[in-house]
């Protein structure tokens, strides 16, 4: 008599509904992160290359294609930030006075800190420099 039906598997697990699709997008944010670091290093390179090199760089940056690329990167960066902060309390639960701090509070704290850090970075670029 034939035995049990073997395990069924599919590489398209990520297409089994929105929760899985969002997880794949979350993971793909890594591609945007790496791509952005290349763009950032190129900028540093050309700024240090002097005003001429920077002018060329700026011209490329102002092309519609690069606007679009940065918009996509920004979307992925935000997806990373949002998903990452939401998972923080799961990996690092906090206890205060013998009680577990509610997850929502930790997530809210992370977002608060993120807003503060972002403001500081903006001030550094716009005011301090």
């Amino acid at each position, binding site marked *: 008599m034939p035995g049990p039906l073997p395990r069924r598997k599919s590489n398209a697990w990520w297409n089994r509904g929105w929760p899985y699709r969002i997880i794949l997008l979350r*993971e793909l944010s890594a591609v945007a992160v790496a791509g952005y670091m290349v763009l950032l290093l190129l900028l540093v390179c050309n700024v240090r290359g002097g005003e001429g090199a*920077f002018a060329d760089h700026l011209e490329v940056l102002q092309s519609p294609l690069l606007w679009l690329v940065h918009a996509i990167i920004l979307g992925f960066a935000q997806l990373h930030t949002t998903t990452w902060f939401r998972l923080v309390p799961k990996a690092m639960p906090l206890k205060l006075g013998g009680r577990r701090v509610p997850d929502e509070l930790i997530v809210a704290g992370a977002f608060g800190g993120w807003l503060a850090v972002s403001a500081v970075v903006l001030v550094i670029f716009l005011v301090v*420099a």
Partner: protein
Amino acid sequence: MRPSNEPFFWAIFSAGGMIVAFLLPVLVIITGFLVPAEVVEFRQLDNLFGNWLVRLVVFGVAFFSFFHAAHRIRHTLKDVGLRRIATPLAVVCYLAALAGTVWAAIVVL
């Protein structure tokens, strides 16, 4: 059951993930939108990147971001069907991150 070397890469992945989560959105807004809109100008950027401390931070962010990305891409490719070549895949991903880190070091030096 041999002990895993994964903690080493996971630690860098996690630290990188935290750094990316905090810094990337605002950095993309600045260098992707405020710089081309000329709200942030050459003079300001030159001042900033002329500072060795800022360059050191850029290097640190690059190192953690590249290894964060490499680790994530490696595991994602594994999960969508490249499990059979998991080891060469890991080598390729981390070597790419290492190459990016070396380039970052050259850029900030």
